[in-house]
């Protein structure tokens, strides 16, 4: 009976952990998508994007440390590499900034989507 209770407790804990991690990643992804959208708007308006880019980099830095517990390091490194290019592009007001932000946004969305059980991800 002790083992049964322990198993039920563990299963409940793992289920709660899975739901919490999916919710956390979803929330963080929303925040990252917002920041990406802000940068896009600022670029289109011709404003200075350095503050928003810095905020995005800080947000990702915090987020990727937690993500390392649940996602393959190779996938996180790929996004980190894309994010690392943003400050330089922002400083030079490069026209590639929007493309780079789009790439970061798409990869973050993909990472978040991988945490949700879709038919395609389960199978």
């Amino acid at each position, binding site marked *: 009976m002790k083992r049964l209770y322990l*198993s039920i407790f563990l299963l409940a804990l793992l289920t709660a952990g899975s739901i919490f991690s999916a919710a956390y990643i979803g929330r963080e992804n929303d925040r990252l998508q917002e920041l990406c959208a802000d940068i896009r708007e600022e670029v289109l308006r011709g404003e200075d994007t350095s503050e928003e880019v810095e905020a995005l980099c800080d947000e990702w830095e915090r987020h990727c440390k937690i993500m*390392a517990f649940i*996602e393959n390091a190779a996938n996180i490194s790929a996004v980190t590499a894309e994010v690392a290019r943003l400050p330089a592009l922002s400083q030079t007001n490069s026209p590639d900034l929007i493309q780079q932000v789009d790439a970061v946004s798409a990869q973050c969305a993909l990472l978040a989507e991988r945490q949700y059980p879709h038919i395609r991800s389960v199978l």
Partner: protein
Amino acid sequence: MIIVMIRALVLYCAVIAAVRMMGKRQIGELQPAELVVTILLSNIATLPVEDISIPMTMGLVPIFTLVSIDVIVSCLSLRFRGVRRAVSGSAKLIISNGEVDRHAMRELRFTTDDLMAALRSQQVFDIKDVQFAVAETTGTISVCPKKSAQPPTAADLGLSPEESDPPVMVISDGKVSAAALRHLGLDEKWLTKIVKAQGCQVSDVFIMTAADASDYTVIKRGDMK
């Protein structure tokens, strides 16, 4: 490299905890569900050790999910016969009244060679000596020989020997087993007296077994070759 070592250590502890959680049944003969869990565990545990880009949680979560499910399913099997039959199947009679059930053998995909090998492993070398044989859910064959092929028992010979528990290990490598003494209803005082009578101390005893206060065997370290 140190990361791989630490991960291996953590997963080793996790798998030990998982197998302990599954209980003693897991270590003996495996039911189909337990075999599946064991195979999966060994595979899952190796992935995060080999590949450090895979997070440790990706190894620990499936291990404990599988083990928890296995324990819950075995508890349900214990309670519900339907679950037990669905998960473990049921034993099948392959020899009944000395006659081989070819239909059952075909169903189990059991060849005559398999049958003879299973009988031989049970020390039965002639199929005509078998009264009945059952294919257990663990895949083993249990054989009941005909009365005429069985060695005579004490009851057959009209004897009534005294029933007693087998001896238990009281001292192992100089260490006293308090649980064994409790099981026998004896105490350390008795033990010290017996050991002294052998002309040694507890630490000098390699093995001591006892069935009761008067039936014991002491092997001293000095007696060993």
